[in-house]
């Protein structure tokens, strides 16, 4: 009990961040819906629009259920993204537990702490949903709200159990666990586009979450899916406990090595950071290429009906090329944008951890200035993003050409450049948070990304000022495949990145590093 309480205290910033994110996401999506569709006729028209657009967003969102109601809209636009957010939380929390020096027997306490944390964040999300739905005069289905919350909590615990189990089985827990969860997510979401994948999606917890949509009137709570999530949570936890009891924690090499690494990259700024993350970098590269190819193929598959039209019809080639570019933007660019936001948050979480685990103090004990540390961090993120964007763009180009679709190469380069700038802006903001309040940097960066997303998605509907919307990184990268790069927007992104970086340097110069009490707060169950 004491251990659970200690973990909860240590993760208070994360809980607060996810609770705020859940509440804001559910509330603002509902408020935006009421603004967009205030009357019955508006709702019917908007529902028709959402249903017709659903195939374009199939990789990110499940098909809408009762989109003529705010509850149906919140189920799709808030609770589906929250499932992805909570799955990411499960990955981060499980990996942090396994890679820390906590004892395996602490697992039950950690699981309980994670369940309580998720419950708190879910209650906040449900409160936001209920408030938002009721604000437009729509009756709130209390049983539906509770059902949606229960599904979210059970789903997150099932993901945590999977992550803990997988993380124990590998010497690279962060990479493998992230890879497994990404694979499970895309297995389910791509099965909405490729029917061939539907036979395998039963292994994905995302599938069982999708089966229920309890929030809208007449919505469904799928008992079979719920039972499967419970079964995954129980079986995963039991196997994780069994595994932790049989694990040998200290390996002994038959022949000792007294040589340090001879890798030249470790002598080069930026290169050394990427070298230490080389396995993770390779995994991200593979994910970028596979996803680029898959999403381009999904876009091609979505315009199949157009390809069946007689080619001699006037304007048919332009129509097909335009539709394909539009779909590439919605499927590849938008999904990769979210993936790069996740990549930037992963980098920030590492910068944050460097304070509590003593690595930053080790670096600053060498003749290395604080300003250089900050610049090198962001430069490493930008370099990694540039390589990943180029590889993903190349995969899209080759897949498109292989499928006989034409792509404007210059626009593709524009899109890759905007992906790079987007990650750099998020990274610069994360760098600022990491220098200012490192223990909360990951949560704050997540909130920054979510705020930017909401600013772009619902800011216009809610009447937020134009200057505020123009600062959202999601707004600044708008549609490069369709319209290319806007010089003013690019300049603004560069300015935001420079301001974030300069502020980080100033804050880093002033902060104390290596406080023993900060370490205890960050790792409350460390072995003494």
């Amino acid at each position, binding site marked *: 009990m004491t251990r659970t309480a200690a973990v909860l205290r240590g993760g208070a910033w994360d809980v607060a961040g996810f609770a705020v994110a859940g509440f804001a996401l559910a509330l603002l999506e509902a408020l935006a819906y009421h603004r967009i569709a205030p009357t019955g006729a508006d709702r019917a028209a908007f529902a028709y629009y959402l249903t017709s657009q659903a195939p374009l967003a199939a990789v990110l969102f499940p098909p809408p259920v009762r989109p003529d109601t705010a509850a149906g809209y919140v189920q799709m636009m808030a609770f589906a993204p929250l499932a992805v957010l909570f799955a990411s939380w499960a990955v981060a929390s499980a990996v942090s537990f396994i*890679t*820390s*020096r906590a004892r395996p027997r602490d697992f039950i306490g950690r699981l309980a702490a994670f369940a309580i944390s998720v419950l708190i964040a879910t209650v906040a999300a449900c409160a936001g949903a209920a408030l938002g739905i009721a604000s437009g005069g729509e009756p709130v289905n209390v049983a539906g709200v509770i059902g949606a919350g229960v599904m979210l909590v059970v789903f997150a615990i099932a993901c945590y159990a999977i992550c803990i189990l997988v993380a124990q089985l590998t*010497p*690279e*827990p962060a990479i493998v666990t992230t890879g497994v969860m990404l694979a499970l997510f895309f297995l389910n979401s791509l099965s909405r586009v490729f029917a061939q994948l539907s036979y395998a999606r039963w292994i994905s917890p995302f599938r069982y979450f999708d089966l229920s949509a309890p929030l809208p009137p007449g919505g469904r709570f799928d008992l079979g899916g719920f039972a499967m999530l419970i079964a995954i949570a129980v079986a995963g936890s039991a196997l994780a406990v069994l595994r932790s009891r049989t694990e040998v*924690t*200290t*390996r002994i*090499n038959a022949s*000792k*090595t*007294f*040589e*340090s*690494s*001879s*890798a030249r990259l*470790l*002598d*080069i700024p930026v290169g*050394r950071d990427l*070298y*230490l993350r080389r396995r993770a970098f390779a995994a991200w590269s593979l994910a970028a290429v596979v996803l680029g190819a898959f999403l381009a193929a999904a876009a091609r598959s979505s315009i199949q009906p157009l390809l069946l039209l007689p080619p001699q019809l006037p304007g048919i080639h332009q129509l097909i090329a335009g539709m394909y570019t539009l779909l590439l933007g919605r499927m590849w660019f938008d999904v990769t944008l979210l993936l790069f936001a996740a990549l930037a948050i992963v980098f920030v979480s590492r910068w944050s951890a460097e304070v509590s*685990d*003593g*690595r930053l*103090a*080790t*670096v*600053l*004990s*060498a*003749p*290395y*200035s604080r300003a250089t540390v900050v610049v090198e961090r962001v430069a490493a993120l930008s370099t990694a993003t540039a390589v990943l964007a180029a590889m993903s763009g190349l995969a899209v180009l080759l897949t498109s050409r292989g499928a006989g679709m034409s792509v404007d190469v210059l626009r593709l380069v524009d899109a890759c450049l905007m992906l790079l700038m987007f990650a750099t802006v998020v990274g610069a903001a994360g760098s600022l948070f990491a220098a200012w309040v490192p223990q909360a940097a990951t949560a704050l960066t997540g909130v920054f990304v979510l705020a930017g997303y909401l600013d772009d998605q619902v800011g216009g509907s809610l009447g937020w000022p134009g200057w505020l919307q123009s600062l959202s990184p999601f707004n600044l990268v708008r549609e490069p495949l369709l319209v290319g790069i806007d010089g003013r927007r690019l300049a603004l992104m560069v300015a935001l990145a420079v301001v974030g970086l300069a502020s980080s340097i100033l804050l880093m110069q*002033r902060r*104390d*590093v*290596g*406080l*023993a009490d900060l*370490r205890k707060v960050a790792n409350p169950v460390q072995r003494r």
Partner: protein
Amino acid sequence: MLVEMAAPAIRTSALTKDYGAGRGVFGLELQVDQHQAIGLLGADGAGKTTTLQLLMGLIRPTRGSAYIFGLDCVREAVEVKRRVGYMPAETPDFGCTPGGDIVAYVAGLRGGVNGADVHDLAERLHLDLGLPHRDYADGDRQKLSILLAFMHHPDLLILDDPSRHLDADAGRELRSLIAECRDGGAAVFLATDVVTLAEELCDSVAILRRGRLVRDLDEPRPRALPPP
């Protein structure tokens, strides 16, 4: 250059870090000459680690100043660290990174580290650099910290509780390494709560109690720590 050569290895003037509620260090006046080995004794919470972190420029003083070889520990931190080998009280956690990569990484930041010296130190400490850091026992993590502090032949060693977690053999090797550095002309500033370690290795000791010096470097050496 002459001024720098004559400057003491460590000099503090009214050095203060006030964390509130009486925690921290207050008005510290210390001088450690070059080629001298000085022990800083004190119970847990006396302010030893805070003093060492102030010298390393990791935390900023509330008042006062600290100089190493005549260089300001805050404004000239990079130059200071070229000449210092620092071993923190808490060993850092490098996760799955192998020991050999960690050493090469820090050597890359520092520059000019000889691979043969690293090999020699690792062999003397029986530290396997092929294992991931997460597989190191506490004693191995401490040995890695020793290696990182000694590998570049510093002019000044700042060591915080260096014998913690070490077994008898590694403890003997540590004593031998410190003695060799001291005999080779380096200054040593050693914070510990083990009186015998300070007695064996140091020319003189200072004692901290609740953040204040209660015994000067010129007084006779104590046989036991005062109560906290």
